[in-house]
Structures are given as structure tokens and as C-alpha cells.
């Protein structure tokens, strides 16, 4: 299996605060990796490093064997220019906790924006694909609605369709259901479940333990900026080896 994401000793600090203290992990093609852990453990920060929304301070982070946000030439690391970083991000879809739909565009325009603007694809073809994507997330009838007219669950499903419109081969989910009313969580998880069945490579930061157990291949428990423990979800949830994992799971399960 091909490796999509490879992290080697990834570190991130804000001022004097070490948020990530050497993360090592691998995500293979088609793998679904879920990250759990208390807030402030660094799991969202790691996710944001994968598409260079945060810059890695030390260690190496590769997506498809290419350094994220940097270039290594002749033993030296060079920072990438804005357009090169943008090019790297094209293949990586991201879904945010607060949806972050563009409020001045309709659902359809949100989905169409990036392929038209970034990839310069013809509008007519993109429009057709965008309609298909909205239908796939069950929102064919909401194409003309503005984000403010949609429920949280609907907005998050549009956000997933928007990310998929760039035909990513890796999807990052940053607590996609944390800002939703409980009865709306299911509809978003259903869409994500369908993506898993399609074989999408995914990293999911989540608090939905049931969902993580059901869909992920690898579960990673993080605390204090390090990976405490990782493995198949059944093993980790049923028989955690580390006492911090045990303490965390005893509170959330």
C-alpha cells in the first residue's frame, strides 16, 4: 500500500508553548485514521500541519512523499512560495468544525468556486459536477440556498461537497460534528461513512467514539502534543495499554 501521509518527529510551537512534540505516524492509501484525545492535545494542530495551515517547526511531514510547505534541495530546506503551497493543497480536502462556508455564495457557488478559480475548469462542467456532489450529500434541492438559510448539518454537508469538488485524494476532518446539534450529527456521519466506503483516505479528528470505532482502521490517542498510543480501534478502545488512555476513555465512553 502506498503511503499518503508520513510524519517524522513533527514539532510545532507557539511562542514558548510546545503544541506538538514529535509526532510519528503514517497514513496509507485508503486508510481511515481517527485522532482522539483531550482538547489542547494537539490533534487539530497536527491536522492543520498536513495542509500547511500551520507550519511545521521541526521534523518532516510528507504528503505523497513530498515535504509539506517546504522543498528539500541539496540538503537544504527551502520555504515554498504562496502559489506552490496552494498547488500542494489542491489534492487535500479539509472540513472544519465551524463549516466556514462562504456566506456570500449559494451552496452551488460554494462547491463550484475552487475548481473554477483554482483549476480554471470550464464552468458548465463544474456546475454539473457540483450538482452531482450536492445530490451525493443529499442536498440537491438546496443548490440555490445561501449558508445562512441552511441548518448546521446541511452546511457541513455542503462543506464536504465543496472539498470533494477539487477531487482530493486525502480528506482532513477537524471535529466535523462538534458544532452541530445532536440530532444533526447523524446526517454528517452518514456522508462521511459513504466516503469511507468509496475508499477515500481520511484523517478524522473527532469526539465521536462510536463512529471512530465503526469506520476507522487506525485510532490514535494524543495527549500533551504526543501520540500516546495507536492501533486498531477495537484494541485501543477495549484494552488501552497506557494509563492516560485508560483515564481519558473512562471519562468519554
Amino acid at each position: 500500500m502506498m503511503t499518503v501521509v508520513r510524519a517524522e518527529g513533527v514539532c510545532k510551537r507557539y511562542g514558548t508553548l510546545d503544541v506538538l512534540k514529535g509526532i510519528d505516524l503514517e497514513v496509507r492509501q485508503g486508510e481511515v485514521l481517527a485522532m482522539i484525545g483531550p482538547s489542547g492535545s494537539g490533534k487539530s494542530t497536527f491536522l492543520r500541519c498536513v495542509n500547511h495551515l500551520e507550519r511545521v517547526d521541526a521534523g518532516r511531514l510528507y504528503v505523497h512523499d513530498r515535504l509539506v510547505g517546504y522543498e528539500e534541495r541539496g540538503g537544504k530546506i527551502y520555504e515554498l512560495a504562496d502559489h506552490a503551497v496552494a498547488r500542494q493543497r489542491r489534492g487535500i480536502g479539509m472540513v472544519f468544525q465551524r463549516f466556514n462556508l462562504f456566506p456570500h455564495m449559494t451552496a452551488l457557488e460554494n462547491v463550484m468556486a475552487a475548481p473554477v478559480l483554482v483549476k480554471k475548469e470550464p464552468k458548465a462542467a463544474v456546475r454539473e459536477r457540483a450538482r452531482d456532489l450536492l445530490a451525493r450529500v443529499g442536498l440537491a434541492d438546496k443548490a440555490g440556498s445561501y449558508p445562512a438559510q441552511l441548518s448546521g448539518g446541511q452546511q457541513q454537508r455542503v462543506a464536504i461537497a465543496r472539498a470533494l469538488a477539487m477531487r482530493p485524494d486525502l480528506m482532513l476532518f477537524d471535529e466535523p460534528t462538534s458544532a452541530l446539534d445532536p440530532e444533526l450529527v447523524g446526517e454528517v456521519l452518514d456522508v462521511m461513512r459513504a466516503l469511507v466506503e468509496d475508499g477515500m483516505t481520511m484523517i478524522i479528528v473527532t469526539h465521536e467514539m462510536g463512529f471512530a470505532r465503526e469506520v476507522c482502521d487506525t485510532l490514535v490517542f494524543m495527549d500533551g502534543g504526543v501520540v500516546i498510543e495507536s492501533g486498531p480501534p477495537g484494541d485501543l478502545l477495549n484494552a488501552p495499554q497506557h494509563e492516560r488512555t485508560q483515564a481519558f476513555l473512562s471519562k468519554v465512553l
Partner: protein
Amino acid sequence: MTAPSPKVFSKTAQRGDGAVAIEAVPLRHPGRWVGSAVLAFLVIFLLQGWAANPRMQWDVVGEYLFSPAVLQGLGTTLLLTVLAMVVGVAGGAVLAILRMSSNPLLSGLSAFYIWVFRGTPLLVQLLFWYFLSAVVPKIGLGVPWGPTFFEFDTNQIITQMTAAVLGLGLHEAAYMGEIVRAGITSVDVGQTEAAHALGMTRFQTLRKIVLPQAMRLIIPPTGNQAVSMLKTTSLVFAIAVPELLTSIQGIYSRNFQQVPLLTVACIWYLVATTVLNAGQYYIERRFNR
């Protein structure tokens, strides 16, 4: 309800779900009525006195309201307003983007510009541009400390009109810079992150995602600035640009009918600001969708 309903509810409408709507006797405001009556009387008294005052010389007002000199001055005022606002908005956008640059030299330069142009009186700035030739007699293009390709007398380029547009526009840019910056920083950082995550460059993000949203906050104060600019153009009488007030002054310096002619000026300024306000209303409605 089994008991007979109280009198107050006798005419209540039955809603479909059986809820009884409250039809209460409205609270009376006698003080408000008395106050309104007194104020209305005062306003009518003053307006009547003003309109009927023979010294207002309304016939002179009517005579000059559409006179060619006044209309020409009005045209110059409108042209000055448009040009100065164009310079101001464009300059303000540049200043705002520089100000938010991570390069300290660029953001410092922008801050310095705003400090100077907001910190000195507009009238002084106008005079300064007008007398530029005293400091810089020739303006040309060439290699610094090297050969000059071509040059002009400053007095040829900096006419009264260009001095006025430069003075008003560059002063305006300092204010617009702060307005644009406030608009841009008001847009949620999540919008930028989402755009970046989709592979948009910083420029694409600014143009397609951030600026359209910032416009909602930028437009209302910009409208105020335009209205204010329309009136501020009257300051250029100091460098003798023939705009509305200068034309009016020219006329009353000959016929000594100051009050009726200043009334003419006020009427035209009011008409123009009213049109601007209406335009602002429609633009705001468009961007508030």
C-alpha cells in the same frame, strides 16, 4: 372556556389552534402628543418667517439657481468629488493591504502615510500641493542621480485642478485606508483558512472571498466619506478652483447678494448629497444580500 368571557375579550379573534389573541387597549402617550404639537408649531413658525422674509430675496435665488456659472461650478464640484474619491478609495485599498503586510517596512510606510495625512489640516495640504513648484520646480523621469529622460515644469503639471484632486484624494486615502483595513480584518479568519485549504492563493482569497465580504462593512462608511467629500470640495476655493462655492463667491463679490447666493449653494449641495444617499442605499442593499 365554560364561564362567559370577560368583556375585554369579547371581540377577540379565535386562531386556528384555539389560542386567544390579546387585544389590549394601547398605552396612551399624552406627553408625546403635546411635545409634537409644540414642536410642529415652532417649525412652521420659523419656516414661514424664513420663507416670507423679503431679505432672503427668493427672486435672486431663483434667478441664479440655474445660471450657467453656477451649473458649471456644480459640474466641477461633482467632477472633483468623483476624482478625489477614486484616488481616495484606490489609495486606501493599497494602504490597507500594505498596512497588513508582514513586512515591517511596508506596514510602517503605510502607518507613516496615514499619520502624516490624517495629522495635518486638509487646507494646508491643498495649499502645499498648489505651491509644490516652489519646492520642486521640475518633475521628470530619469535615473536617480543620473541622466533625465524628460521633465516638465511643475507648474505645467500641477494645475489648480490636479492640486485639488491630489490634495483631496491623498488626504481621503488615509481615511479610506483605515476603513478598508477595518472591513478586511472583520472577515472571519476561518474564511481565509477555508479558501487556502481549497488551494486558493493569497491574492485569489483576498479578491474572491475576503473583499466581497469586507465590502458590507466598507460601503456604509465610504458613502459617508463621499457625502463628506462633496462638501469638503468647497475648501478648494482657497486655491481658486472654479467649483460651486468659488463660482458663487465670484458672483456675490460683484452683486453683493451674499445670502441668496449662499442659499443657492446650499440647495445644490443638498440636492447632490440626497442623490448620493439614495445611491448609497441601493449599493448597500445589493451587498447586504
